[in-house]
């Protein structure tokens, strides 16, 4: 049963990666490679400089791999990893939460478009799952004014974590 569910959601994420690639190509003019977080992505992070948090993406990915409906996304351009994102839908599918998102800080082919592209990914996967809201759990401080300008509302969850969310 669990394995069947994993298999079905693997197919769904395959659709998600294909559709996101099309969305970005048609609306941003960039040919991205959207995929699961694979070994070659994890190897590239080791060489990233000026990271905001020293996250262990191998551990993060392992932690979420037992959640069939998880959001899992690596975005590369011409083989160069530009960012990664992991999250999951709430029970009942009210919202899709992103718990970890990291964009490459130094220059890369998606620089200055990366945030828009990751938001497109969140919207698309949330829509595929039938969620009503998008939620970012503990967004980095310099981005808060931009989320506010984009009509995200801020609140605290029952564990005291700040999040922002908006209707999908």
């Amino acid at each position, binding site marked *: 049963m669990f394995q069947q569910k994993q298999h079905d959601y693997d197919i769904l994420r395959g659709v998600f990666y294909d559709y996101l690639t099309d*969305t970005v190509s048609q609306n941003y003019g960039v040919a991205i490679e959207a995929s699961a977080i694979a070994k070659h992505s994890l190897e590239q992070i080791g060489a990233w400089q000026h990271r905001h948090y020293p996250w262990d993406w191998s551990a993060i990915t392992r932690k979420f791999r037992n959640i069939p409906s998880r959001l899992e996304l690596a975005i590369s351009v011409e083989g160069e990893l530009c960012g990664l994102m992991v999250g999951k839908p709430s029970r009942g599918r009210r919202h899709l939460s992103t718990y970890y998102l990291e964009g490459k800080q130094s220059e890369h082919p998606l620089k200055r478009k990366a945030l828009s592209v990751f938001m497109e990914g969140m919207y698309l996967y949330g829509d595929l799952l039938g969620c009503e809201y998008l939620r970012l759990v503990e967004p980095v401080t310099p981005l808060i004014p*931009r989320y506010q300008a*984009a009509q995200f509302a801020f609140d605290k969850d029952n564990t005291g974590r700040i999040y922002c969310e908006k209707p999908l």
Partner: protein
Amino acid sequence: MPATIDRSTARLPELVRVAMARVQRGASYLSDAERRSFDGYDGPIAVGDPAGQRPAIRPTRRGA
């Protein structure tokens, strides 16, 4: 991970067929206001707080 899947057949799981029917392939979800907010940003992009650095913001909804 399924690298190649034939999605033209009726053998797709129900949840995938329902999901695909919900979305318009290739369409952008971001409004003009969102694009203006997000495009051009070249600072740190991160969500999550394992380093214990809380975002410096007060809730805007609680008690409103």
